[in-house]
């Protein structure tokens, strides 16, 4: 997994790519959590993430809940078809902010 972060106003956009599994979740958290802790709204662009397992889904839930606690917003953008299927299997499409 690699990532890129861009900044625009009070929002940061994190671009993740590759396959997000148990081995990659700590890396993803290390990028996302400090931005939320700093009070930023975070756009998480998943257009180049082809695979995500339950560990990756846990990162989405944890990030979403952390943003709610901090009064910011996590928006998950451009989800690939394969990852959307997993999000829907977890019945999270109405819980997470998907765009």
């Amino acid at each position, binding site marked *: 997994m690699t990532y890129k972060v861009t900044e625009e106003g009070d929002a940061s956009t994190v671009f993740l790519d590759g396959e997000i599994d*148990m*081995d990659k979740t700590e890396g993803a958290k290390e990028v996302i959590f400090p931005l939320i802790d700093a009070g930023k709204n975070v756009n998480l662009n998943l257009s180049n993430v082809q*695979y995500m397992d*339950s560990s990756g*889904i846990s990162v989405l839930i944890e990030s979403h*809940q952390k943003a709610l606690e901090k009064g910011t917003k996590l928006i998950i953008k451009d989800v690939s078809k394969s990852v959307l*299927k997993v999000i829907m299997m977890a019945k999270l499409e109405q*819980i997470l902010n998907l765009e």
Partner: protein
Amino acid sequence: MSTEVADTTNLSEKKDFLVNSSSLKDVRSFSREVFEKFKINEELREELVLAIAEAAQNIVKHAYKDYPDTQDRMAVRISCTDKELEISFFDKGKPVEKSKVKHRAIDDVKPGGLGTFFIQEIMDSIKFKEGDKPWINNLVLTKKL
């Protein structure tokens, strides 16, 4: 190490992996290669890969919870007839306590507890067996084709 047994009606492939989270990508690669060879349709293939990866992850996370630096190996065997797919996992970790294997309530949204739910959603049956020596655990997942 990978072994293959094939005839016209029954295909089977088995491979072993180091019990470590870094092996999960190799488990997925192996599974994708086998399903391509078995001509499983692409949509079902990715669901099955997820179920297999979740089961392998459970071995790393639970059966070897106290042994993160283990050098033990786990094995995955994928067998296919024209009617059914059987996926077996073998490990030498802590014996599975069947009563403790459950997913979280799906409407209780919190991190964790989804791997077993995904396996149940994707597969038709899940059976925990005692493994034949040298294995301790043998998980068998099946899916009708």
